[in-house]
């Protein structure tokens, strides 16, 4: 295993670690948003039975959770190692710094990354661990068929009744958008995917996907807050 550690310690090995773990986390964010889009159907049963299905996975859920958590931890620790090395690579800063083409998103990756970390912790305390100080009181149980199950819909609904919480999530979506819009195209370059014809497409896709994810999540929060759902718009029956 020492070869793996020495690979991780090298500059490109660290970058590849960021790219691969970033891609996995991106996959998670996509699935997370797609699952939550079920809020848009108005009926609480949809999201509640989805949540029940996930919880019923039992040990598999824990495998997924531990896997996700280790990928996340690896992404963060590698980021810390690389950015510390980057800092010490320039011991004296320029008196007059200049930037020619580096995007705002690319320059704020460390900041946006740590904001995402902070928000993920808040998000977990809010919806997973349900810390009383953060999570508003909600109707805890709901009956689906014969069984009682956790009322995820009520938990989200009561939370997003509060404009402060909605705005906090909105700010987070903007940060997530910045992080993903650079991260996606950056990981392609790191993995050696650079081509005259495809790179512009990758950049556009990266931007578009980041927008779809942030927008989709925002749509869920707003839809719940404003009590407007797809059936209201005549989009689904």
């Amino acid at each position, binding site marked *: 295993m020492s*070869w793996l550690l020495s*690979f991780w310690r*090298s*500059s*490109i*090995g*660290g*970058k*590849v670690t960021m790219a691969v773990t970033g891609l996995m986390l991106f996959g998670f964010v996509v699935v997370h948003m797609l699952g939550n889009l079920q809020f848009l159907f108005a009926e609480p049963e949809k999201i509640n039975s989805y949540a029940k299905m996930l919880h019923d996975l039992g040990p598999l859920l824990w495998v997924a959770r531990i896997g996700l958590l280790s990928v996340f931890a690896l992404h963060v620790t590698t980021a810390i190692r*690389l950015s510390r*090395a*980057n800092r*010490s*690579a*320039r*011991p*004296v*800063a*320029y*008196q*007059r*710094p*200049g*930037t*020619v*083409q*580096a*995007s705002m998103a*690319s*320059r704020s*990756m460390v900041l946006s990354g740590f904001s995402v970390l902070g928000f993920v912790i808040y998000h977990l305390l809010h919806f997973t661990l349900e810390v009383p100080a953060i999570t508003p009181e909600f109707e805890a149980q709901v009956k689906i068929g014969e069984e009682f199950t956790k009322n995820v819909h009520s938990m989200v609904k009561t939370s997003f009744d509060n404009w402060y919480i909605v705005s906090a999530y909105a700010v987070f979506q903007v940060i997530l958008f910045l992080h993903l819009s*650079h991260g996606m*195209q*950056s990981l392609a*370059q*790191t*993995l*050696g*995917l*650079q081509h005259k014809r495809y790179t512009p497409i990758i950049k556009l896709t990266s931007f578009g996907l980041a927008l779809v994810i942030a927008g989709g999540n925002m749509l869920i929060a707003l839809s719940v807050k404003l009590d407007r759902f797809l059936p209201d718009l005549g989009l689904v029956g």
Partner: protein
Amino acid sequence: MKVKLHIWRQSKKSTRKDFKQDGKMVCYEVDHVSPDMSFLEMLDVLNEDLIRSGEEPVAFDHDCREGICGSCGVMIDGVAHGPEKGTTTCQLHMRSFQDGAEIYIEPWRASAFPVIRDLVVDRAAFDRVVQSGAYISVNTGAPQDANAIPIPKPDADKAFDAATCIGCGACVASCKNASAMLFVGAKISHFAHLPQGKVEREQRARNLVEQMDEEGFGNCTNQYECEAVCPKEIPIRVIADMNREFLRAKAKEE
């Protein structure tokens, strides 16, 4: 025209412990600057003024003054080699500045490039990277017939694009992380597209990256500032080439 310069002055060589030494920004005014002067000629004029008044002239690196040797190079208002695209500092002319402009001139900043004096930095780190394998080993003997090894034109072009690197260090200086990946990528890409380079490709990718890391350069975060300031306009494709070559080498390692 007349310009006001803010120049980094440092009389002692930077050490790992004390990178700044006695360095500080000093302000100078230069009169009688012609717009047709190159940036370095303007510094020559300043130095003549300084010598006349008994002060120490500003030390800066320069040699060919036609953009091919890679000796010159300073940060001008935070941009390596100044505001013009695809030029070295010596190819920059004063007509690119407004009359009465205030110009900040600083040396390349990287822990791998210690300042020797004023604007002069020690770029031996680049030499050590090259020595670690940015060449091909061949038995010298009678020269081979020309065109004995056919190379497709697109490959030759890619190799040549990378080979135009003059090792000036602008990529490191402009990088927000002081990364040398454009330089090292150029060296690796140069050989990766040629049949002559294929024999030692894995060893080369491994050794160059290892040496680059050892020199204490930062890590690329794909912001592409290097590409924007490179006087030879080396594309960031070479970094992707390097990443691929390194991954291939690491995967094949026993």
